[in-house]
């Protein structure tokens, strides 16, 4: 079996995955996206023989590069984990929200507006505090919690003036009272393999921003909503970020190139091994890298 790894920065996660793949005796083909020239004609074009790869695992830190590379590889017939369409949905908070809502998965209330004026109206509709986020972005960067109209006006003006055009797609969410923590459920294929909660004194609870992770026991509802969310974005290997509220769980976002270094020890689950199991299963044709889109509102969580 030949397993390609689309990679840029080698983090602890990539080292753990590579070590695991090596222990399974498969042939590893690193594809460093920053140095690769993708010849669109494949081997006939004097490029790599992409068709010789049984499967490619995508582990890039750059969303735009990951997406373009996945698109090329899939078009050349290489099964990818995750699939291109999964990356397309998960990498964009607006697309994620649409997919989750279509599948009946509960999400925080959100609005999209294209000008600072209409965005302000959207925020006032949701009420304060509200959260403004870039539709594309991660690690909790450039998130703004605005507690009043003055702050909202200032953030919107700054985004419109200083940001690239992406920042004028204003994605606004209600601020969720989440009890100082958020939850992350790791889903591999059709299994929720483990979960953590991330606690912080700051309202942003990313471990990339210093939050502390601890094990979270899975319950039936958490598993059901997480699997529904995973299916809604197309399946594969994903991390579902949720808020727990008195009214139930809400799915905030789905990550398709998940980081897990802080989750192995507290959960006791060998996450790299689970990832590799799935990748090899896709390579052998035992698993699909992506599922067909669920029919509208059919994947709803049983209440």
């Amino acid at each position, binding site marked *: 079996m030949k397993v390609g790894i689309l990679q840029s920065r080698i983090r602890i996660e990539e080292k753990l995955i590579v070590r695991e793949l090596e222990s399974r005796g498969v042939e590893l083909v690193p594809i460093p996206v920053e140095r690769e020239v993708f010849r669109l004609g494949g081997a006939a074009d004097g490029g790599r023989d992409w068709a010789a790869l049984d499967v490619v695992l995508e582990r890039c830190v*750059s969303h735009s590069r990951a997406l373009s590379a996945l698109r090329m590889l899939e078009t050349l017939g290489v099964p990818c984990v995750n699939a291109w369409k999964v990356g397309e949905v998960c990498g964009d908070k607006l697309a994620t929200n649409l997919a989750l809502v279509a599948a009946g998965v509960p999400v925080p209330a959100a609005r999209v507006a294209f000008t600072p004026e209409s965005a302000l109206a959207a925020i006032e509709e949701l009420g304060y505090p509200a959260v403004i986020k870039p539709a594309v972005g991660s690690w909790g960067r450039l998130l703004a919690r605005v507690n009043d109209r003055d702050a909202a006006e200032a953030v919107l003006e700054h985004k419109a003036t200083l940001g690239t055009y992406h920042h004028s797609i204003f994605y606004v969410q209600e601020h969720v009272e989440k009890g100082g923590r958020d939850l992350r459920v790791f889903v591999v294929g059709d299994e929720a393999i483990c979960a953590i909660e991330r606690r912080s004194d700051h309202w942003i609870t990313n471990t990339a921003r210093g939050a502390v992770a601890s094990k979270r026991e899975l319950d039936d509802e958490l598993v059901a909503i997480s699997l529904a969310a995973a299916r809604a974005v197309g399946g594969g290997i994903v991390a579902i970020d949720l808020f727990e509220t008195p009214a139930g769980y809400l799915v905030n976002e789905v990550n398709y190139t998940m980081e897990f270094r802080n989750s192995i020890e507290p959960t006791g689950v060998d996450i790299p091994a689970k990832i590799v199991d799935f990748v090899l299963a896709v390579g052998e044709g035992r698993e699909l890298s992506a599922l067909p889109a669920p029919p509208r509102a059919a994947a709803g969580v049983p209440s």
Partner: protein
Amino acid sequence: MTTTETTVACTECEAPVRIEADALAGEILACGSCGAELELVQLTPARLQLAPEVEEDWGE
């Protein structure tokens, strides 16, 4: 993977930076002397380069 541990000079301050035996190309190393984030761009021979700044679309 390299087989033995080596050291390479930091591109910023020239202090020796240790490359572990199980290092992989693409890995980020911090210079113990000046704190620069360095990318191991090549394994044999080991070559370091100042790591790129985090870009807007980077993440999980």
